[in-house]
Every structure is written in structure tokens, then in C-alpha cells.
């Protein structure tokens, strides 16, 4: 394929992916918006004032970046996991396999689709948060960079999950038993400085902690961990997981007999 044909193929796949999740918006866009609104009301409005300040900010201001990031992570991941697995299940993945589209275009198409949903939901949550607090962004470029990279990372993760999955249960195990606990323990609702030193050390092993903290740093200018180190870790994870996903596609794992 020449570069124009490759671009057309990629845009076709991205367009198809975006059309998919917008067509079923009551399943994809509405639920996270309602859930996050509940978090803002219960934790931010009702419980927050009793908690007081966290790292020098009101509790509502503290949790907003974490909740946006949580929505981005879960939606990026689940979009690609369910869409790609559904393509596998219905065998419509064969439409792509018989075409001359390079494997990296297939991977990138699904990843961009997942990022579109993750970032779209993130934007919705951000808009909802404006009803509860005033948002100021200390480092706009860093904020955008972190949220985009995180969406990419978890989209790739969802892709690998779908490639390995053999039944629909397999694509809900990781979000339910790994992603959600790590997100809750990733400093969305608290600063790890509140934890005893042992649990602070344990928390440092949680990759989501770095993403939430860097994103919060972008908004508030405060972070529990070094920002540069966290950014490097995210980029490294993206490169490694993309390479693994591409290798799996090239070798036909989960899609070719």
C-alpha cells in the first residue's frame, strides 16, 4: 500500500470505531458520565467538606483529575477490548485480515478508536465537573500529553486482552479484577502521603498511580512522585505493549489457526 492508501485504510478503521461507540452511546458514553456525576456529588459535595483539604486543595479539586483519569483509563481499555473481541467473535476481523492493510494499521486503528472514546468520556467528565467546581490547569501541555498517552497505553492493553480472549468473560476479568482495584488504589481519592511508609512503597509499584499523579500535577501543580520519571514510564509502557501487540498480530495469535 502506498502512503495515501494506508492513510485511507487507517481513517476508515478509526471512523468505523468512532461510529460504533457513538451509535451505542447509551452503553458507552452515558453510564460513565452518570457514575462520575455520582462521585462528584457523594465524595466531592457531601463527604468532601468533612474531609477538609488534601495536599493544600479542597477535596473536590483534588479528586477531579483522578476521576477524569479513571474514566479515560476504563473507557479506553474497554472500548478496544470489547470492539476487537466482538470483531473476532463475529469473524468480521477477517474483513481486515484479507485486505492488504498492514498489521500496524489495524492495531493503530483500534487504538485510535479507543483513545477517541477514552478522551471523549474524559471531556464529558471534565464538563460535568465544571458544575461542581472551578477547574484551573497549571500545566496545560503536560495535562493534555499525559491524558493522551494514558488513553493510548490502555487502548493497547485492551487490544492485547481481546487478542488473548477466547470468550466474552475473558475481556471483563482484567477491568474488573485488575484495572478497577489499581485505579482505586492509584491515588484517585487520596494522597499516598496519608499512607504508612510501607504502603507508600507498595503503592509505588502501581503504574496507575504515576498517571493519576502526573495528570493531577498538570491540573494542580502538585504530585506525590517525580513527573519526569512518570512520563518516561508511560512512554516506555506504550512502546513495549505496542511492540507486543504488533508481534501477536504478525504471528496470528488469537486470530489465525
Amino acid at each position: 500500500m502506498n502512503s495515501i492508501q494506508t492513510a485511507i485504510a487507517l481513517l476508515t478503521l478509526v471512523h468505523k470505531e468512532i461510529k460504533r461507540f457513538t451509535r451505542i452511546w447509551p452503553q458507552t458514553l452515558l453510564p460513565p458520565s452518570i457514575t462520575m456525576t455520582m462521585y462528584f456529588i457523594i465524595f466531592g459535595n457531601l463527604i468532601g467538606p468533612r474531609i477538609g483539604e488534601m495536599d493544600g486543595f479542597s477535596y473536590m479539586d483534588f479528586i477531579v483529575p483522578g476521576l477524569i483519569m479513571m474514566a479515560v483509563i476504563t473507557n479506553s481499555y474497554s472500548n478496544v477490548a470489547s470492539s476487537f473481541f466482538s470483531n473476532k467473535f463475529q469473524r468480521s476481523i477477517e474483513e481486515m485480515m484479507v485486505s492488504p492493510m498492514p498489521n500496524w494499521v489495524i492495531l493503530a486503528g483500534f487504538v485510535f478508536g479507543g483513545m477517541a472514546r477514552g478522551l471523549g468520556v474524559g471531556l464529558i467528565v471534565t464538563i460535568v465537573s465544571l458544575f461542581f467546581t472551578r477547574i484551573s490547569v497549571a500545566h496545560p501541555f503536560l495535562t493534555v500529553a499525559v491524558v493522551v498517552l494514558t488513553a493510548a497505553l490502555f487502548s493497547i492493553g485492551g487490544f492485547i486482552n481481546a487478542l488473548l480472549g477466547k470468550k466474552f468473560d475473558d475481556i471483563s476479568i482484567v477491568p474488573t479484577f485488575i484495572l478497577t482495584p489499581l485505579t482505586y488504589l492509584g491515588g484517585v481519592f487520596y494522597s499516598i502521603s496519608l499512607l504508612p511508609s510501607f504502603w507508600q512503597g507498595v503503592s509505588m509499584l502501581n503504574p496507575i498511580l504515576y498517571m493519576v499523579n502526573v495528570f493531577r500535577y498538570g491540573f494542580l501543580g502538585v504530585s506525590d512522585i517525580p513527573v519526569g520519571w512518570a512520563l518516561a514510564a508511560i512512554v516506555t509502557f506504550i512502546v513495549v505493549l505496542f511492540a507486543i501487540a504488533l508481534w501477536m498480530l504478525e504471528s496470528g495469535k488469537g486470530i489465525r489457526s
Partner: protein
Amino acid sequence: MAEPALSIRGLTKVYGNGFHALKGIDLDVEQGDFFAMLGPNGAGKSTTLGIVCSLVQKSAGKVSIFGIDIDRDFAKAKYHMGVVPQEFNFNQFEQVIDIVLAQAGYFGMSRREALPRAERLLRDLGLWDKRNGNARMLSGGMKRRLMIARALMHRPKLLILDEPTAGVDIELRRSMWEYMRRINREEGTTIILTTHYLEEAESLCRNVAIINHGEIIRNTSVRGLLAELDTETFLLDLAHPVSDVPAIDGFEVRQVDAAQLAVAVHRGQRLNDVFTALSERDIQVVSMRNRANRLEEMFVTMVEQGNEEKAEAERGESRS
């Protein structure tokens, strides 16, 4: 001389469970041909086509499409191929028009180029009125036609059809045959089809390969194959039931039921002799027809022969 549309050498496939699906097959399909691959279920037809279309990974062997080795440049080879698989393999929740346009996009066709092409194909295949409907709302025959339209979007020179008319009613099947004949004749598209309807292969195809147990047991022209047919079986409907099977010299006669006989007629024998012998016994025939289509008869004989040889070989192995 033009490169074959499809050339296969020593193609072997061993699945993870140890099943030897293909045992080193060789096959050439010339450009412009209408070619049938026949074989019982599990013979290796779909595995062969799956490897050609990159849905199945080969264990060994070479495959070239219009001279392009798929191990060297599969992407280039794929431009020349359109694939209609056995199972429905599109997203049932998408609109018909989106399915065909997306396929064009995957082949790098711009939307401006793809839209008129989609309209023409969907009109030709009687799906234009359904273009904005969900694919799951289509009937089985329409879904098959949708897969044909999708496969033709990028103007392939080789169309691979894996049981394209399975589950399609007779009227629709014949209209699909006509369409396939047209694109083969007018556009020069090489067509390879697998089918269980041997009437389909006899009616459409010029050349045929018969696969059994992962090996090609015959690869010849349909006409040549039919010329080899030694025996045809005729069913004779009788005016009145008979209690015994009439013995006719030189013919094998079987009673199907009280008022129907099956008579095997070998090459060189005359049906007139059968009618004379029956008239002498005061047995009147009111109608007559072939037991099955001719290719089917030959196919069944070959496959049964192959199965017997395999069973014999296995018995020999277990004895040694």
C-alpha cells in the same frame, strides 16, 4: 505464457492438535478460469482457501497469486483477491452500505471512488434498497450476496467463493450463478469455488479439483471428468407395482420400491434393450430420470474409493 491466477506447490497444513489437513498439495488455476474445488466435509478445501486468503497459517509449501509469492509480498497479492467465506463474517449490527464501503477503505479506495462502485454492485445484487438497513435484518440469501458485493468492491482479478450458495433457495441460486458467469465472462474474473452442490460445479465450472483427506485425487476439466463416467443409473417409474426384480441380461437392476426400479447402464449398453426386456415381461415404464446428476455419481465413487484405500492403508499400518 501468463502466470496462473493461483499456483500452489507442496501446500501442507498440520493443525495444533496434530490433524494433517493438507498433505502437500499442488494446484494451478489459470487466469480467467471458473474452477471448482470439490470434496467431502473436512477434506481440506476451506483450509486451502483459508491459507490463500491469509486466514489460516500454512505449515509448509508455496502459494503464488498472479505470480506473486505470498511469503514475499502478501499485501500485493491480496489486492488481486476477493473472498467470500462460508460463514457470515461481517458485523451484523452495521449498515449494509457501511460494510461494503469499509471494505473498500481497507483496500485504500477513496470514498469518492467507492460510493459509485458500491451503488453498482448493490444494485446488481438486488441490495440497493437495503443499503441503509442493518445487516442482521437481511435474509440468508441477501447476506450471501452482501458478502459477494463486499468481495468485489476493490475489483479483484481472482474471486474465491467458499460455498457461496449454501442455504440459498433454488431461484436465488440460479440468479447468483448467472451473476458469477457474467463477471467471469465479461470482466475476465477468475473464479474459484467450493461447493457441495455438484450440479453447481457441473453447470458453472470448466475445471475441477477433487480433494479428499488433504490430497488432490483428481485435477482435470469437468468435461473430461464426465467423459470418464462409465455408468449412469436410471430410475424407472412403473405403471404397476412388481413383486420381483426382473432379471435383464447384462444390466444390474434393483428395486427401489414396488413401482420403481433402478437400472445401472454401462457405457456402450443400450437403454432400448432394457425397455425391450421389460415389455417382454409386460412391465410398462411411465417415466424415467437420472438417479443423481452425473458429476455427483462420479464424485461419490471417487470419494468412496479414496476412503476404502485409506482404510486399507490404515489396516496395513496397524498390522505391521
